[in-house]
């Protein structure tokens, strides 16, 4: 098992007035610095301490560790979780491993649906996720950002378009599920779950890239816009899933019809109820 060292906020060293400002929403954390959310002026450089992480595969576990590092106040819990999870996403091989998983799902889908539109768009989504990983590498250290500000800027402009394309595709994919044969639908669902779960991490990288260039408004805008698309996409999926499952509950579905979803019910539930993803989309670090 890989052991990674990441940096988490040392809340014991944070002055009470900063904690209060963070809790009230008057301050947010950008690039590890507490800034006013009104004018982005620096309020405090946050103190960090190294934390050893046992696993980079399960963000839910990481989130729990992050929560344990925070106090009892809701917002500091969210910030602590976002900082810890964000650090894992930004500074470890987590994204690359997720990318490999996604890639294998696309390849399986490709083998079944070769040449169809679905694959064309799925590959576009894969290109987006690869671009996210490339951007993550670019912003992994302050020195890299300083040396390559132009490249980070170019990445930002490219990522925005690719994100919109990917979200539109994932939204449309919900409507395609009903038209696919069972086996293909299973693979499409696996791809959908993995992709949508990846999106908040991708948005974290994109918004962090903007913050690293001190384009705070752009970073905030990316997060808020992506949050809306993400929630809409989840809502579409929930509505499709519940429609199918309600049919089964009413006794109107044949056994095979919702089986593909039933086989993936726990994955679907954990995606829909994933607080960690929501925190990544709502909290700056």
């Amino acid at each position, binding site marked *: 098992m890989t052991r990674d060292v990441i940096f988490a906020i040392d809340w014991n060293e944070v002055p009470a007035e900063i904690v209060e400002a963070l809790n009230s929403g008057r301050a947010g954390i950008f690039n590890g610095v507490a800034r006013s959310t009104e004018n982005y002026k620096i309020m405090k450089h946050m103190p960090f301490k190294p934390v050893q992480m046992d696993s980079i595969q399960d963000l839910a576990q990481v989130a729990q560790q992050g929560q344990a590092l925070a106090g009892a106040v809701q917002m500091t819990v969210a910030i602590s979780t976002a900082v810890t999870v964000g650090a894992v996403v930004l500074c470890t091989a987590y994204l690359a491993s997720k990318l490999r998983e996604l890639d294998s799902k696309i390849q399986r889908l490709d083998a079944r649906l070769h040449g169809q539109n679905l694959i064309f768009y799925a590959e576009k989504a894969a290109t987006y996720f690869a671009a996210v990983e490339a951007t993550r590498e670019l912003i992994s250290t302050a020195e890299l950002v300083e040396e390559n500000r132009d490249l980070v800027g170019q990445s930002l402009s490219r990522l925005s378009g690719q994100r919109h394309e990917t979200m539109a595709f994932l939204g449309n994919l919900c409507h395609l599920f009903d038209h696919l044969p069972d086996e293909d639908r299973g693979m499409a669902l696996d791809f959908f779950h993995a992709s949508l779960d990846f999106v908040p991490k991708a948005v974290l990288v994109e918004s962090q890239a903007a913050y690293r260039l001190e384009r705070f408004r752009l970073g905030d805008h990316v997060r808020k816009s992506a949050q809306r698309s993400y929630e809409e996409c989840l809502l579409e999926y929930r509505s499709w*899933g*519940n429609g199918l*499952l309600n049919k089964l509950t*009413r*006794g109107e*579905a044949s*056994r095979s019809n919702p089986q593909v979803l039933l086989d993936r*019910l726990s994955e679907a539930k954990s995606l829909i109820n994933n607080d960690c993803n929501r925190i990544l989309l709502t909290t700056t670090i």
Partner: protein
Amino acid sequence: MFALKYKPDPGLEFLQFCSHEEINELSDILISTGGSSVELSTNSEYIKNKENLSKCWPIVAAELQKFGGNTISNIARIGEGVLYDEIVNDLCLSFEIASQNLSITEKEDEILLKSLSDSFCIKHALKLFNERADQTAGNPGNQTVFMECIRRNSFLAYEVSLEFMDIIKKFAESHESKMKKLWANDTRIPILAPIYAGPLFEILRKKADPAFRVTIPAIIHIAYLRRKKLKANIL
């Protein structure tokens, strides 16, 4: 004795979404009403999962299918059940409900409505309904309009099934001695009380086939669970 075997059944598949408590209530009904014909309580899978019955819902469903088979073929303990839809059709026939072209949910609604037609029950249901009429579908005013509202509004049907369980539970509490006399040999009155009291009391007494004792309360409980799940959404 034949082993319980669940027949894939569209009408009962939703039981996989039910909690341990919900399946436990259903199995209590089957065990309490089924007498010596019940296989559930000695079934190894059932015993193994006694603490988490949601894992073995097919076995509980299979027991109901078996009793349904008894009402239809009247051949006890053949181990082969029938689909839930057939069980409901059988009860509809007995209640003189025209069930052709109705979905399972609609048939259950009609059974609930038929049970509600008991004067005691309808009086209380109407009172409760009128109390919340402003938030629902307007003031129904009378029994006919009230029943039509239920047919047209699945959410209301769920509300009614909830109220229905509550009303007959209260009735049962006030008629405990009558209940105990009827089911003198049954020591598990508490779970049975809500089901056997009130409007179903007379119906049950009139039914010659003992398997109706099992299927009627089970259908009412399943109708209630189905509406509960439809209201909550699974995802």
